[in-house]
């Protein structure tokens, strides 16, 4: 299959204009001994063949009867309008809105996205999104180091371990001290935080709900940070914000998070989006694209990329980050999702996820030999302790077509018998009854 339109006559005429006899002559700048010998890729195929091949390959991914795997990445229902509207080619085949006159669609959508992120998180300003929740958190930490001129980061171990790995990669070549505190059992280690936050601290990093699904209030930590001249960074699960206290209300300075659950399919790890929202005073240290409102030369309200002087294409090595674009289409999907749910649907969905998780906890922890570990209200996810190793429980249920969650032993010492389990609004009472029955039969 080829997507080039040139006929033989086109090529001949074009070469005449250029003034060379053959296309090959256009490659004369490449010395002959640098030419490639060829690929081992084989011949091209028709659309029908490729689609058939990939359908077959997709078929090798076996369906599950029930999936309770979460860990920061969730299977929520996506309204059809999200796919249909994000599937408009005027959105998905455009590029970064450098020319505002022919990009007002993308620009206004990003402005509306930024507004939505500010509103759900309770913050003043948002960027146009970054790659994912982990890079958002890493960029948030680098930002806090720039703002404070300090380099010690105090991070809760119940922040998603995947993010903590990514942060270590991002900070790999920086002069930075990463102090990991807690968890105290599965509870927040207040003592660890208060002992570690001091005059040398750039930021404390927390997550709500934390990796174990526990809902916390971090107001005391942010107050401690403020006293020490440090910032508070909160990674938050956006869907919980329909119900739970916002990071803004808890006094966070920088809020980040994974936006996947807002209208983006799991898609085996991406593409997703990371959102970043901060207090207004830090906007000039915020990395990534930002859209602002202005007027055109006739006084008409419109939108442009703004504060570009922070960015790599102008500042080069002095830029706030090397990041070039945002995850525009994923951010559009997040906006579409939030619009479709609306004020009421967003709250209802958050309430359902809260309710279902706490219901599941009651029903499942009632089984003999199963214990609820969080000991506090949970959102979406919760930790159960089993008599057996969680790996064994997981494998047994997998044989019955159920992926029951994430055994925690691989991530935390002493948690070999614990499993992190997730329910979303796509599940109901019947699914939880079925799971209970399967667990009882083990």
């Amino acid at each position, binding site marked *: 299959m080829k997507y*080039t339109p040139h006929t033989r006559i086109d090529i001949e005429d074009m070469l005449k204009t250029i003034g060379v006899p053959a*296309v090959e002559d256009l490659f004369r700048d490449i*010395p002959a001994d640098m030419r490639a010998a060829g690929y081992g890729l084989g*011949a091209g195929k028709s659309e029908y063949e490729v689609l058939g091949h990939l359908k077959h390959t997709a078929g090798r991914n076996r369906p599950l009867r029930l999936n309770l795997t979460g860990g920061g990445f969730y299977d929520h229902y996506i309204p059809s309008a999200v796919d249909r509207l994000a599937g408009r080619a005027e959105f998905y085949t455009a590029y970064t809105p450098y020319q505002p006159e022919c990009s007002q669609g993308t620009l206004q*959508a990003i402005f509306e996205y930024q507004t939505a992120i500010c509103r759900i998180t309770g913050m003043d300003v948002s960027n146009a999104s970054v790659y994912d929740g982990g890079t958002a958190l890493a960029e948030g930490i680098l930002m806090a180091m720039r703002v404070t001129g300090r380099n010690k980061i105090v991070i809760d171990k119940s922040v998603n371990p995947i993010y903590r790995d990514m942060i270590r*990669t991002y900070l790999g070549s920086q002069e930075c001290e990463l102090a990991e505190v807690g968890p105290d059992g599965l509870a927040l280690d207040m003592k660890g935080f208060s002992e570690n936050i001091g005059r040398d601290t750039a930021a404390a990093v927390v997550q709500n709900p934390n990796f174990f699904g526990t809902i916390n209030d971090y107001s005391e930590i942010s107050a401690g940070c403020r006293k020490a001249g440090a910032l508070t960074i909160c990674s938050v699960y956006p869907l919980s914000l329909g119900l739970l206290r916002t990071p803004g209300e808890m006094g966070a300075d920088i809020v980040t998070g994974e936006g996947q659950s807002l209208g983006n399919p799991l898609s085996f790890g991406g593409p997703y989006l990371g959102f970043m929202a901060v207090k207004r005073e830090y906007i000039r240290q915020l990395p990534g694209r930002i859209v602002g409102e202005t007027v055109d030369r*006739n006084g008409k309200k419109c939108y442009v990329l703004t504060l570009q002087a922070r960015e790599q294409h102008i500042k080069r090595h002095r830029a706030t980050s090397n990041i070039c674009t945002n995850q525009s289409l994923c951010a559009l999907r997040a906006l579409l999702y939030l*619009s479709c*749910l609306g004020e009421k649907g967003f709250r209802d969905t958050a309430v359902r996820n809260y*309710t279902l998780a706490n219901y599941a906890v009651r029903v499942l922890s009632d089984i003999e030999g199963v214990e609820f570990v969080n000991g506090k209200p949970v959102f979406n996810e919760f930790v159960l302790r089993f008599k057996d190793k969680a790996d064994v429980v997981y494998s047994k249920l997998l044989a019955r077509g159920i992926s029951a969650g994430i055994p925690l032993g691989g991530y935390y010492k002493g948690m070999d018998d614990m499993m992190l389990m997730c329910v979303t609004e796509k599940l109901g009472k019947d699914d939880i009854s079925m799971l209970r029955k399967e667990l009882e039969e083990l």
Partner: protein
Amino acid sequence: MNRELLYEKSIEGRSGYALPVSGIQEEFPGPEYLRSGPCGLPELSELDIVRHFTGLSRLNYSVDGNFYPLGSCTMKYNPKILEDVSSLDGFSRLHPMLPLLPGAAEYVQGALEVLYRLQEALCDITGMDAATLQPLAGAQGELAGILMTAAYHRMKGNAKKTVIVPDASHGTNPASAAMVGYDVITVATDSRGQMDTAEFAERINDEVAAVVMTCPNTLGIFNADIRKISRMAHSVDALMYYDGANMNAILGKVKPGDIGFDIVHLNLHKTFATPHGGGGPGAGPVCVKDFLAKFLPSPRIVRDRGGSYMPGEGDASSIGKMAPFYGNFGVLLKAYAYILLLGEEGLNDVSDKAVLNANYILGLLRDHYEVPYDRKCMHECVLSAARQSEKGVHALDIAKYLIDMGFHPPTVYFPLIVKEAIMIEPTETESRETIDRFARVMIDAAGLAEKEPGVLRNAPVTTRISRPDEVRAARDLNVRYTG
């Protein structure tokens, strides 16, 4: 008239969403855990939302609607089948944790196979030995490459401090180097439009960790000295980094690994036809020579003896994780399908036609605009509006006039080393008629600059808005709706 925002259209009590009935009630946590007021999300019907966003979409120029010769961005046509492939249920609903859970990799063999085969194909195309698909964009691929460079030098005990980039480079190159803590040395472009080899020879020394180059460079020129440059770099144990942004020019013609490069990143959203999405998502896989493989981010997809695919964790040498899982899978899948569709001959045809189209544009316009480096180009050409600027017409005015004529403008004012730069990358999927039409408008613009410069300075007049006040946007910062 101003276009209303979603929030301004909101009507209290309106809604277009319903959950299944659950029959479950649970007590809420205490008030210290609950948000104190409403979110302020819009209240609209589904039709309200569909009209709103359909209306917004119509304000965009896009590849599907317009010629989009944005230099250095490779805005080629994105085959529709790619959208179908990535939305296959068997792929789009897969949870990325599964292959990391006991025994569950069995449930995602199809997805892992796609990733494995794409790693192999990209190594073949770049002439490299090992690949990571993790980086989520070209700039993140660069960051991964520079982090690997730092890890390599740490292992060897090399005291390296600097990274060399040509002055024509993309802004992300020096920015990525700076993020890893390197000082950046910029080498000038010579009169042929290549990095000045003599100046490079003076600047290269024991402290240089890497030389980051795009080849062909942002002027669309292939550097014939590249082997000499890489020999000099390697003689002081500096790594050669290939910024693959311009790979579309040399598909099937040159493998960066054959001409002295050690690390390559690719922009799949450019060369391999995955849509740009209005500014992302992209994908920036990195391929390296064998001696750097152990530094690649982890995990990479491996095949065991039994033929099963799984994520293989690297050892302590790996720089760690750039992404939560295996990269932007949905994007990677599209690139894989594109490679299958085109095959070897098709990929070779891509660079043939991309280079043919760029030279054809250059041929049509060379008498009407200044050509700062007057020689055959590769996939893009850089003109200058310096002659027009003497009449008070700037590259930006020409760009705005092109919008009136239905074209997305080329990249302007980049590369930074060309005064009044107009950087045109037509890509291979555009027809001769489209290019002819575009060239006629560019020639008209050059004529208007002489006779009626006001027309250009007033452009655009056909769009809903014209020439936003960007200074005001940055001064009176308003980045969210506060009504």
